[in-house]
């Protein structure tokens, strides 16, 4: 499965080449425009600094208390049979509600197991292929003042489940 990794390696350079090339050919002032976008990007990051502090502290405390180890001891034997390390269970649940809280857990997995371990790869893929179900639904339906959401939740959970299963297979192929 080295091919997957190699192919991944060329995506970013090609994308940068294409965007800058296309911009230049279309007579965009590429450098100045880039600076403006980059400045906006910095503002976005500055906005999420407090969130990250709050959540990393909470997750760090929770792990130091031994709570995750206890949870892993309970769930490990069951979930590992399905290819899901016990570490990922809190992530799977929290991710349905809040993507920033999930980020705290993701970083904890990266720190304890490393981003290139099976758990780390699985987490990376998993987080890339699914979104926060309940948060998205509540915000979007609020905009339309809809209270009866019909089959949205079933469909969303189904897509999330499909993404999770796919992630397990893909991560297995990578290690």
């Amino acid at each position, binding site marked *: 499965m080295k091919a997957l*990794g190699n192919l991944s*390696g060329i*995506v*970013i350079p090609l*994308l940068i080449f294409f*965007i*800058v090339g*296309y*911009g230049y050919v279309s007579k965009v002032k590429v450098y100045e*425009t*880039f600076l403006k*976008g*980059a*400045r906006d*990007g*910095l503002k*976005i*990051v500055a906005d999420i*600094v407090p969130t*990250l502090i*709050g*959540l*990393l*502290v909470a*997750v*760090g*405390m*929770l792990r*130091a*208390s*031994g709570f995750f180890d206890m949870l892993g001891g309970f769930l490990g034997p069951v979930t590992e049979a399905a290819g899901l390390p016990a570490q990922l269970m809190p992530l799977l649940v*929290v991710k349905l*509600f809040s993507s920033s*809280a999930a*980020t705290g857990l993701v970083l904890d997995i*990266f720190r304890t197991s490393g981003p*290139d371990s099976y758990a*780390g790869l699985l987490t*990376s893929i*998993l*987080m890339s*292929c*699914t979104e926060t179900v309940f*948060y998205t*639904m*509540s*915000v*979007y339906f609020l*905009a*339309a003042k*809809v*209270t009866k959401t*019909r089959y*949205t939740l*079933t*469909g*969303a959970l189904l897509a999330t489940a*499909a993404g999770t299963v*796919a992630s397990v297979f*893909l991560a297995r192929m990578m290690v």
Partner: protein
Amino acid sequence: MLNAIWAVMILVAVLYGAFTGRMGDITNAALDSAGEAISLCITMAGVVALWMGLMEIASKAGLIQKLTRWISPFLTFMFPKIPKGHPAREYIATNIIANVLGLGWACTPAGLKAMEALARLEAERGNPEYLPEKPDPSAGKAKVTGAAGGTGSDAGSRRASAEMCTFLILNISSLQLIPVNMIAYRSQYGSSDPTAIIVPAIVATLISTLTAIVYCKGKDRGGIRS
């Protein structure tokens, strides 16, 4: 939502730590994690600024608008009953493209506009739940029974239209092609190859999105029959 999650995490940590006698570890973890959040943000700032800079070029060069036009056939396939010139289509297209490119900040406003436009579409179709009622919170309930003759229901019980369900399921199935944040996190935590996950992530995203498409199309068809 986050209030509850955050409070539970902190409270459980301290209570469980007191129980296991690890209060010292918790102290260290709290202080270390706060510092770690800052070093993480420094790495992330670089990656996010780079991405946003590139996207600004793409947007100025008209690339994003072009992409929005390219997905028109896809929109017609997913939302056959939205009239061609309706604003809902435009907002949905913008939201989808912003999602695909990982422009988080641009997705939500367009997405909310899309939902409002879809609600207006329902009103245009004459769906009684969506017809504008004069907002009169104090006497609203009493008037509905008299005026609407029992057929209409108040705005509190609007049912999602099929388009809304499809739009949200698609959204939640994740459309983002390049997981920019994940790549930044991976590089911060010492991955030997942070971008190795791009292709697997695209494959997994396609699978979750295809599942969403098949499910929504199935539901649409079922809806017509019943």
